[in-house]
């Protein structure tokens, strides 16, 4: 059991991430709010508790790594990094602006704290395998986290990487699959089926844990279940696309579309209301 204070603190961070997602995507006039909101709780747990990292030393060799393979959730990642102290939060207002370092999809050369450039789906898990392999080679105890989209695992390269991860016994690799069940063209099971998803990963030699990806206590608890048993682990996090903003939840329309001015105001007031309720 994690103490209530910690859980409340992470919930607060997750709400802050969500507010910045709405703020930055609204100001940018483009971006992906739906899939950013669905991973906000997971990112909050990772950056504000679970991961070993140091915002003052982004290239610290012993840090845990995070590869946001679903790079379109960049607004959520940038918010987590800024709130953790990698760069000033005010910078988030310049997302996708020309000449600014916050690219539409994560760029490791420009953004402190970004461990890998991503954006084109299907690549991140391979890179995470390489990082985990390097950790084993160097006998370091860092872990590598890879956040995958659910639609993303339709890419064949994901399964090449999944195969390599179990072949090389990478128990320092933890994939988190943001199972929000929607991709651009529709529900994943209609577009190109993924189920039985847990079974598929098991068949590739992974330990599979299924959780509610919005339950902070459950997310935090899950990391304790991961064993150093020569097998990579995947956490299938059941989530809701657009989570936290009522009219974005479970809809396709905000996959890659910013809110209008009116929607922006409504979304922010909902999230501020949630913050007030949390503080009461």
């Amino acid at each position, binding site marked *: 059991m994690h103490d209530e204070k910690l859980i409340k603190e992470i919930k607060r961070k997750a709400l802050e991430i969500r507010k910045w997602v709405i703020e930055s995507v609204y100001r940018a006039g483009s971006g992906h709010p739906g899939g950013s909101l669905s991973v906000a709780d997971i990112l909050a747990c990772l950056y504000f508790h679970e991961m070993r990292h140091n915002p003052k030393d982004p290239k610290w060799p012993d840090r845990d790594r995070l*590869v946001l393979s679903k790079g379109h959730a960049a607004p959520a990642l940038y918010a987590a990094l800024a709130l953790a102290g990698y760069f000033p939060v005010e910078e988030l207002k310049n997302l996708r602006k020309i000449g600014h370092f916050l690219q539409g999809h994560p760029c490791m050369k420009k953004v402190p704290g970004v461990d*890998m450039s991503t954006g*084109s789906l299907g*690549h991140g898990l*391979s890179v995470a395998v*390489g*990082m985990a392999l*390097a950790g084993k080679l160097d006998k370091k105890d860092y872990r590598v986290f890879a956040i995958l989209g659910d639609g993303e695992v339709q890419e064949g390269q994901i399964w090449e990487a999944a*195969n*390599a991860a179990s072949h090389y016994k990478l128990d320092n690799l933890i994939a988190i699959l943001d199972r929000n069940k929607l991709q651009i063209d529709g529900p994943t099971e209609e577009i190109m089926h993924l189920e039985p998803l847990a079974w598929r990963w098991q068949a590739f030699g992974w330990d599979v844990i299924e959780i509610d990806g919005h339950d902070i206590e459950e997310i935090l608890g899950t990391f304790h279940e991961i064993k150093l048993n020569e097998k990579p682990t995947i956490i299938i996090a059941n989530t809701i696309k657009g989570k936290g903003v009522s009219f974005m939840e479970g809809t396709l329309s905000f996959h890659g579309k910013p809110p209008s001015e009116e929607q922006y105001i409504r979304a922010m007031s909902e999230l501020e209301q949630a913050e007030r309720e949390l503080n009461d």
Partner: protein
Amino acid sequence: MIDATITDKKRNLRDAYSSALIALGRRNPDVVVLDADLALSTKTKRFGTVFPDRFFDMGIAEANMMGVAAGLAACGKIVFASTFAVFATGRSYDAIRQSIAYPELNVKIVATHAGISVGGDGASHQMLEDIALMRALPNMVVIAPADATEMEDVVPAIAEHNGPCYVRIGRADAPILFETHGMFEIGKGYVLREGSDITVIATGTMTAEALKAYDLLKKEKIDARIIHMPTIKPLDEKLVRKAAKETGRIITCEEHTVIGGLGDAVAMAIAKKPVPMIRIGVNDVFGESGEAWQLMEKYGLTAENIVKRAKELIKKS
């Protein structure tokens, strides 16, 4: 001018690759080698035998291999990733683009079996567009060494260079052109023969043909300048422009499609002050099965064709 002669001595560039890789591995513990189930053909297996801990066979999954290479490089490794050129660049293009070239990671893609001289395997395995594909990527260095001696110099040079590199070598044994080591430098072209009537700029396997062409042209009283251009990107533009100015005619030679390779790079370099030019390469067609020498002949990748085209160019201009 660089000392280069064609002798009867031949050596395979893949052998040179593996011996240079082992020497590099001894000096530098950060060197890691990946292959995609062709380690016996690319000869990286030899590195794996000497350094089993630093060699990983990634199986028949080339795109994943490139991503894994990127991850290792992001953690400080100098990664050599090898397979046949057709899989290394064609199959893996997006992985190279997204995970290696864009983040500018320290991955060295060393591809073997490039070009039409692969022979019997036919068009499916004869990679003729790899230079074009890799040249188009920002941050990528593109190299095609001419012989085994040069290959042994290329390996430490690319390890020294912090960033992505693509090296293409052929399958067949190649005549030894350079007796001594120490010539190769990334981005430099080399004048192998002085001449003032025409310049022949060649890369990879075609440099030996260009040297043979020099002797044949000499008999016809044509004084050709022969330039070996191991680095296609960044191109030694200064040397190209100087040759254009001094000889007034250029022929480029590459075992690659005429689209997007050395010929196009040279044409770009002289676009402001153009001179009459012919690009020798495979003319926008796929290859076919056959013996390596038969294919080189059929597709005009020979000294004799260089001579023929040189005479044409001189006659016309």
